[in-house]
């Protein structure tokens, strides 16, 4: 849990290439950001300055859904929850933004794992995608459970399915796709059924907590991606702290990936 060895931070002017609605209040934006796209590891995030928001002065942190280092681009999947994301969703292609990145501790490299389970809920789904991809590329077996309110909000399903070659396990609150209920239930079942060396999870805190509990019960190492309000995003301001067994840690640079058993929920 340390940031001392982080690679250099990049401040990059980026261009919005596309900004598409993909589900209820859900958008995917593709940006040209060659240097950060090159450098970013799964689990790291970028800190985005949305332009023209004069009086909303803070940057917004976003996980990176997928990087395309060759093209110098990356995708961010975001949910409209407040002023900034609403504003962002209305920006046309061609808009200039800027971002700082890559920020934070990535997921642990999958090399050496025997089997990985990724559990992602809601707007947490993009945060695990690149790590699942890395597992696939490293030949590590990986199962994915996605949770969402309903079928139309399961917007990452297809990209995961294409990557995995099979549909991920899905859970929706209303049962409109896959299991009816929380993703934590099929996740716990999988942990009983299969031998995992690692669980990774991102989503609302109650989901991550439940997944972490199941993993602890099953004796599986578990990493979580924590969200906090962030001012600097670079480790300087201490606005983003997470309670851990080692005291308060910064979500931005000591995280966002934490060992689940170190987090004091």
């Amino acid at each position: 849990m340390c940031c001392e060895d982080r690679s250099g931070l990049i401040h990059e002017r980026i261009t919005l290439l596309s900004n598409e609605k993909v589900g209820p209040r859900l958008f995917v934006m593709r940006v040209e950001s060659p240097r950060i796209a090159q450098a970013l590891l799964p689990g790291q995030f970028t800190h985005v300055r949305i332009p023209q928001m004069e009086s909303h002065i803070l940057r917004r942190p976003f996980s990176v859904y997928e990087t395309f280092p060759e093209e110098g681009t990356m995708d961010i999947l975001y949910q409209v929850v407040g002023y900034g994301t609403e504003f962002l969703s209305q920006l046309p292609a061609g808009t200039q933004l800027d971002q700082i990145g890559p920020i934070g501790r990535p997921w642990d490299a999958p090399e050496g794992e025997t089997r990985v389970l990724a559990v992602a809920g809601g707007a947490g789904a993009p945060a695990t995608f690149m790590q699942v991809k890395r597992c696939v590329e490293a030949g590590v077996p990986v199962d994915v459970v996605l949770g969402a309110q309903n079928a139309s909000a399961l917007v990452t399903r297809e990209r995961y399915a294409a990557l995995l070659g099979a549909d991920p396990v899905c859970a929706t609150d209303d049962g409109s796709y896959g299991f009816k209920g929380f993703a934590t239930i099929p996740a716990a079942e999988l942990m009983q059924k299969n031998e995992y060396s690692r669980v990774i999870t991102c989503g609302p805190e109650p989901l991550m907590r439940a997944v972490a509990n199941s993993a602890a019960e099953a004796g599986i190492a578990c990493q979580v991606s924590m969200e906090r309000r962030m001012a600097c995003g670079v480790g300087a301001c201490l606005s983003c702290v997470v309670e851990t067994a080692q005291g308060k840690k910064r979500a931005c640079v000591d995280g966002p990936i934490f060992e689940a058993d170190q987090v004091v929920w």
Partner: protein
Amino acid sequence: MTQVNMAVNLGGLEMKNPVTVASGTYAAGREYNDFVPVEMLGAVTTKGVSLNGWEGNASPRIAETPSGMLNSIGLQNPGVAVLKEKDLSWLEGRDVPVIVNVSGHSFEEYVQVIESLDDDDRVSAYEVNISCPNVDSGGMTFGTHVPSVEKIVGLCREATKKPMIVKLSPNVTDVTEIARAAEASGADALSLINTLLGMAIDARTRKPVLARVVGGLSGPAVKPVALRMVWQVHNAVNVPILGMGGIMNGTDAVEFMLAGATAVSVGTANFVNPLATREVIEGIRAYCEEQGVTDVNELVGGLQC
């Protein structure tokens, strides 16, 4: 084009340019070093430090407000030993003066912090923070009444011969009264403003946005209040002023200098733009060049009323 002299002297502290960072927004410079090599700054001002370290407040600790933000970090810090071991070691050998921002829950603690740093050559000056609104004891409670200001500034003065900047709170009826008390008790310079006490509410949940309910307001929103206080204090005391509060660019910095600041701190702006300090330095220089000012000190208190 003639060279502009950018060097200033802040109560005995020599700065190669008038720009430092606002305590608590920049750690000790390392986190921003990829963007702005710390040597570019006139000085680096470290996050408030107490004797044995504090845990700070619960999360959420920040809220965005119109043209500003609230924070309630609560002076989380690992204590003076860790500051020396980590931050001052990292700063060692880098060509930038270090201003250590000092906190305490008691008069004694302030003095102890200074004592444990005073023979350390890596410390160039102190900024004594008697104005943090985010802690229950110490901080602002010391800085809002003349007798406690006199007491604490006097005690700190006895503990050091290094330049001592006293940081004032804007949450007072008459800032000049506090400023004069600090000057009379031995401050070499005054810095202002710390944050304005504020609050944000989430109407939907009917809860305060900050776990601690109230927090300190900073950013462009407070600039008019900060400028006014710098100008009032400049007219009330003879020691130099380190001005801050919403400085986002060179023009803002020039306004503070015209109002009476000898140097300025860039705080919240770093969060918006990690290159802010650099741009402020360049902006001040560009202003001087445009206006034919050859020495930045000419700006100080140059307001024409």
